[in-house]
Each structure stands twice: as structure tokens, then as C-alpha cells.
């Protein structure tokens, strides 16, 4: 749509022939305008679709909303009371710890497995493209279906996972019991996240020119050294973003946990807790919009912290 307006050839940039100083300044101003123009659709988009709901969310967390005031208005301003209440609950630290384990374990395993697979597929071989495509299939399934399938496979009495463990002489595991639930949802979530990591890391690897690696090979570096000394450093920008996005997405995972356990036992995370309160679902049917928004805001703050880390890492890389 934009292209039809803009494809008309634009005349030569003025000023190149002029004397250096004002020309450069003008040039810089022009570049800036161009940059803004390129980013404009995104800016409009962000304001329209993100800023408004985000502000709404914040506002909800400092007002005392219930279902009635949500519909008819008149929720009283309560300042940070809701935050105090949420953080003061016994379960807060427990849920926070579970969220940390869920998130870190998920992204660590996803990343390592995704990278291993990406390297495996790096040089094409017979059927490699088809197999690589098939790795994405888990993503095509509605989570309600894949979540249910995992729940069944993890059935403590008749599940196929326990049957397989039995073949190698391991006692059956009560996968979805209150204590084991966290481990089980991590397994399912890793499975869901591998395609994402594989795709990004694979295309990251494809963007690395093989020249350096080949030169190093000629110098006698073995495959392991080449991977650690050349591939990994070059892959760093892509790795960073994969990990950051993985973190952000994993922090807000609700569906797979919800379908498998409703966030009961150790599988409760900040995201499922917030979801349950926002909808009056799960253990409690009591709707708690403000508490849900407060937990949501806490999640955003956590993501912000990691966002800052990311930016710091990015800056170090640029220097």
C-alpha cells in the first residue's frame, strides 16, 4: 500500500556538492526524517494497539475493581494497596520461585536443543529440508489439543510415558501431582518451544559466512574449536534475541500449563495466577481484575529488567 505512493524515483540527494559542514548537518537531519518515516507505521501501531491497553492495565491495578465496577464504573482509587496485598500473600514468593524455575529451565533447554538441531541441519543432507519443516509441526496444533495429548501421555496410571519408563525398569511417575506438576509442564513447554529456537537459530547460522570457519579449518582448528571460537561469537546477536524473546514468551505462558493442570500445585506461575484471577477461572471463580493487573504489571517489570540487560549486552557488542 505504501509502496505505490513511494516508489516514484526520488531525485538525487542535495548537498553533496556543497561545503562539508552545513551539508553534513542537513544530511543528518534528512537521515533522521527518513528514519522516522520508516518507523512511522510501527509508531502509530504501538500507540494505537499497545499503549492504550497498557495504560488501562496499569490503571486497573491501582483501582479496586470488581465485576460490578468493571462494568458500571466507579472503582475507587486505592494506590498501591493491591500490589501490597498481592506481594504480601503467602503464595507470592512460592509462585515467583516457580515462575523463575519454569522460565529459566524452559529457555535453557529449548535454546540448547534448538541450537544443536540448527547445527545438525546447517549443512543440508538428504531430506533435510523436509525434516526441518516437520520440526515445526507441533506449532500447528491448537494448544488445547497438544496440551490434552501431553496430559494423557503423562497419565500416572495408563500413560504411555510411564509405560515407556516401565520398559527400562523405572517406576511410574505421578507426573501431574502437585509436586511434580512443574517438571511436567516444563517438559511440555520445552517441546512447544523447540521449533521457535530451531527456526531462528537456523536462519542465524545461515547468515554466517562460512569463509571464516573454512579459513580456521585450514589453520588446523577442529570442529569444536571452530564452533566455540567462530560460530558462537558471530551468532551472538541472534542468540541474545532468541533468549530474550524466549524469556518474554515463557514468562507469559498460560495455555499449556492451564490445559494440563489449571496451574495447580507447583505449576502455578505469575502468568497463570494472573490469568485465573482475571477470568475467575481455575480454583477460584472470584474475579479479581485489579489483582490480576497488578501481577501482570509485576511480570512486565520483570521483563523490563531483562530488557535492560539485553540492551546493555547489545551495547557492549556494538562497542
Amino acid at each position, binding site marked *: 500500500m505504501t*509502496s505505490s505512493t513511494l516508489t516514484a524515483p526520488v531525485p538525487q540527494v542535495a548537498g553533496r556538492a556543497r561545503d562539508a559542514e552545513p551539508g553534513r548537518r542537513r544530511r543528518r537531519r534528512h537521515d533522521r526524517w527518513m*528514519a522516522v518515516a520508516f518507523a512511522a507505521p*510501527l509508531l502509530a501501531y504501538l500507540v494505537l494497539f499497545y499503549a492504550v491497553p497498557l495504560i488501562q492495565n496499569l490503571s486497573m491495578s491501582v483501582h479496586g475493581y470488581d465485576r460490578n465496577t468493571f462494568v458500571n464504573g466507579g472503582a475507587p482509587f486505592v494506590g498501591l494497596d493491591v500490589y501490597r496485598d498481592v506481594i504480601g500473600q503467602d503464595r507470592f514468593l512460592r509462585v515467583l520461585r516457580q515462575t523463575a524455575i519454569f522460565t529459566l529451565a524452559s529457555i535453557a533447554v529449548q535454546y540448547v536443543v534448538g541450537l544443536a538441531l540448527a547445527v545438525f541441519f546447517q549443512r543440508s543432507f538428504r531430506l533435510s529440508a523436509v525434516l526441518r519443516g516437520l520440526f515445526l*509441526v507441533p506449532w500447528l496444533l491448537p494448544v488445547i489439543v*497438544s496440551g490434552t495429548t501431553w496430559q494423557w501421555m503423562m497419565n500416572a496410571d495408563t500413560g504411555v510415558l510411564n509405560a515407556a519408563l516401565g520398559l527400562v525398569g523405572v517406576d511410574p511417575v505421578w507426573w501431574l501431582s502437585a509436586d511434580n506438576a512443574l517438571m511436567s509442564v516444563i517438559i511440555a513447554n520445552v517441546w512447544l518451544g523447540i521449533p521457535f529456537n530451531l527456526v531462528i537459530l537456523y536462519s542465524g547460522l545461515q547468515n554466517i559466512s562460512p569463509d571464516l570457519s573454512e579459513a580456521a579449518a585450514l589453520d588446523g582448528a577442529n570442529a569444536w574449536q571452530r564452533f566455540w571460537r567462530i560460530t558462537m561469537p558471530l551468532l551472538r546477536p541472534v542468540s541474545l534475541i532468541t533468549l530474550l524473546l524466549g524469556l518474554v514468551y515463557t514468562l507469559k505462558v498460560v495455555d499449556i500449563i492451564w490445559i494440563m493442570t489449571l496451574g495447580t500445585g507447583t505449576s502455578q506461575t505469575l502468568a497463570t495466577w494472573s490469568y485465573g484471577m482475571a477470568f475467575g477461572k481455575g480454583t477460584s471463580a472470584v474475579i479479581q481484575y485489579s489483582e490480576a493487573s497488578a501481577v*501482570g504489571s509485576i511480570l512486565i517489570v520483570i521483563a*523490563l529488567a531483562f530488557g*535492560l540487560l539485553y540492551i546493555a549486552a547489545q551495547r557492549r557488542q556494538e562497542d
Partner: protein
Amino acid sequence: MTRTWWKTGIGLVLIAIMLFPIYWMVNVSLTRRDSIRRGDLVPLDFTLEHYGVVLSEQGSFLATSLLVGLGTVVVTLAVAAPAGYALAKLALPGRRTLSFLLIVAQMVPAVVMALGFYSLYSRYGLLDTIPGLIVADSTIAVPFAVMLLAAFMTGIPKELIQAAELDGASTWRTFRSVILPVSRNSAVTVALFAFLWAWSDFVFASTLNRGGGDLRPITMGIYNYIGAQNQEYGPMMATAVVASVPTAILLIVAQRYVAAGVTAGAVKD
């Protein structure tokens, strides 16, 4: 080629492990309800009944999902590609703040956004329409797309852009004829994600397109099997199988475009 046969072998084993849950789903979709929870390794109590139900009911949902998915890809790329370029290569003022905002944006729970869309859409009559759903679904992918494209575009050598500028190309021209072609890999990657997210979206569909009748995506079609006290997992799993076949083919085809060395080759010259 013969030397890589062992790799194909390992690849097949890996894919077998990865797709085992999918096998399980297919297994269940071919089992009569009476035996669905028996946990048999193969559908001993075989039936095609679930597929009969699904094929007669879900065709139009499938078509809608495809349309929504493709529309989302277009909107996402149209917004994200120029922005990614501005972030990566142009002197965009406040670009760190913007990258930061993009991270924040992805944390906004879909539920909160759905509510925002609902009030906007009910005001402008966009509820239960496909364009409405496309715009909403694109918000899942846009921040991601911008970040990913920017990350990849950062790696494009300065020389390439300078060469284009020396030839007298405008910024837009450089973007169109130099940046976009070398970004094909990442653009395909972004398109894939945009498509898949739109395909599997449930929150927006159930809030914004509930009353769309046949013009609802497949994730809503599954509603038909969720009763108040009774869920029919057989047809649900069959729906998932039927829905994944066309998209799996699409994925495999798209994957070929993330071909080895596209960017590397372009940069080398």
C-alpha cells in the same frame, strides 16, 4: 550424498521423538470414544467417525484460518520491515527507547489487548470481520518481527548500503532493492511466525470473532466439541489433524526458501 545418509537416519529418529505426541493425537483421533482413554499404542478400537464429523463441519473454518494467517503475514511485514530497517541502519532518534518499548509491548497480556480491541471494534463495526481479526492477530507478531528483522539487518555490511547510496539510490530505493532482497531469510522466518501465531490464536478469535459464523477460524471450530459438561476429544483431535495437513505442507515449502547461503552469497559479492 551417500556420506550424509547417517545424518538422515539421525534426523528421522529425532523427528520421530519430536512428533510422538502428534502420533498420539492421530491415534486418539482414530479411536472410538469408548476406548479413547484406554491408552492403547495403536487405535485398536478403530473408527473414522470423528473424521466424518470434522470434514463435514470444519471446511469453512479452515479456509478462514488460511485467509487470516496470510493476511496477518502481509500486515506484519508491511509494518515491521521498514521499522526494522530504521532501527538497524538509519539514524532513528530514540531507537534504544523504541527497542525497549518493543520488549514491553510483548509483555502486554493478550487478554488486556483483546479487551482494548473489543471496545475499539464495537465502536467501528469491526467485530466479527476478517480484517478486524487480521489486524488484531498481527499485534502478536509485529514487535517480534521488528526485533528480529532489526537484529538480522544489523548484520548487513555497511559497504552494501554505501555502495547503493553512491549509485544515487534514495533511502527507500536502497531499502527496496538492497535491504529487502538480502533479508529474505529473516522475512520468511517472520512470515512463518506471523502465520503460525495467527493460525493458533484463540484469545482474539474468541473475543473479537465469536459471532462470525462460518467466518471464524479453526480454533473456534473446536468450540463445537466443547459442551457444558461434555467434551468430545475424538473430533477435537481429528480437527487438529485435518487442520495441520495443509499448513504442514505450506511450512515445508516455505522452509525451502530459508535456503542455505542466500544472504551470505549476496554479501560476498
